[in-house]
């Protein structure tokens, strides 16, 4: 299909095979352009909205941004149902068809090998949170040091028990950190056993997550499609196994494989 050269070309993703008609779902104006065995999903957009200066202006509007990033993700998500894709970042735009083709020619080998690698794999995100209040409530079963102090307190005179109680409060924060450390390593390792690749992202503070619980793992996993049901069952199992820590898992996917695209050329 010809591309009108007086408009801008907005890129969604590159696919390894020709997507079926209607594969982009209900979104209008989506075009699949084939070039040397690569299938680029794109849309014509207007300078009024997507020129460099207008795009810059628009992304500072939260409703505009919200609508368009969700649409970006949705178009790619629909294609992912039947095709392996390499997603482009939101707001990747070419001025001409020639410029786009030149990009494809330059990166053809890298794009094809990335598509081969990503075939039959899915990206999933896992955020793990701990409920601090629940940990404090169950601290003596989670911390050997605290359990020892509790035992000493139970055998001590009121005066000594008071001093030991103060000591217990002093080491509480350190013990909770150690529990978080050990727990995050254990949980991450057991999930990673089922994945092909992982990336650990920064653990976010409560200010950013808006949650009362403490985040202890923020990870992305690349998982063989056949293993996804087992992976999800495993995350459910972890919640049950760690009930005394008030564990909460946020599992989301399949994401377009943003985290695992590696263009080596």
């Amino acid at each position, binding site marked *: 299909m010809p591309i009108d050269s007086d408009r801008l070309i907005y890129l969604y993703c590159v696919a390894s095979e020709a997507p079926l008609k209607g594969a982009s779902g209900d979104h209008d104006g989506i075009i699949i352009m084939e070039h040397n065995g690569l299938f680029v999903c794109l849309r014509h957009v207007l300078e009024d909205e997507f020129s460099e200066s207008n795009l810059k202006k628009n992304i500072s509007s939260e409703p505009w941004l919200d609508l368009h990033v969700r649409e970006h993700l949705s178009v790619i998500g629909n294609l992912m149902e039947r095709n392996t894709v390499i997603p482009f970042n939101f707001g990747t735009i070419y001025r001409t068809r020639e410029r786009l083709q030149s990009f494809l020619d330059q990166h053809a080998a890298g794009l094809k090998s990335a598509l081969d690698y990503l075939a039959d794999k899915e990206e999933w995100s896992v955020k793990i949170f701990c409920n601090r209040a629940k940990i404090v409530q169950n601290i003596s079963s989670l911390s050997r040091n605290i359990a020892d102090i509790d035992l000493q307190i139970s055998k001590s005179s009121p005066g000594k028990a008071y001093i030991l109680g103060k000591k217990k409060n002093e080491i509480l924060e350190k013990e909770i950190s150690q529990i978080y450390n050990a727990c995050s390593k254990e949980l991450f390792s057991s999930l990673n056993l089922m994945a092909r690749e992982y990336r650990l992202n920064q653990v976010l503070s409560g200010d*950013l997550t808006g949650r009362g619980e403490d985040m202890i793992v923020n990870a992305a996993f690349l998982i063989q499609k056949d293993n996804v049901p087992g992976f999800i069952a495993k995350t459910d199992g972890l919640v049950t196994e760690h009930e005394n820590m008030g564990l909460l898992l946020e599992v989301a996917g399949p994401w377009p494989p943003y985290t695992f695209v590696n263009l080596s050329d």
Partner: protein
Amino acid sequence: MNDDLYDVNKEITILDILDRVLTKGVVITGDIVISVADIDLIYLGLRLLLSSVETMEQMRAQPSIK
């Protein structure tokens, strides 16, 4: 929102999406792309927005003076 995106707990937030579609993909290309400086501004804007929502909620939670 993409209905196919599985999430056992909640709706995917704009921050979750931006963390992928702005910062993680193939960082090449494009005659026009959103620059790192623009991305910083987007995050700053959203965080200010989120914190102002929070402030409003806190204000609402204050007992009214009669």
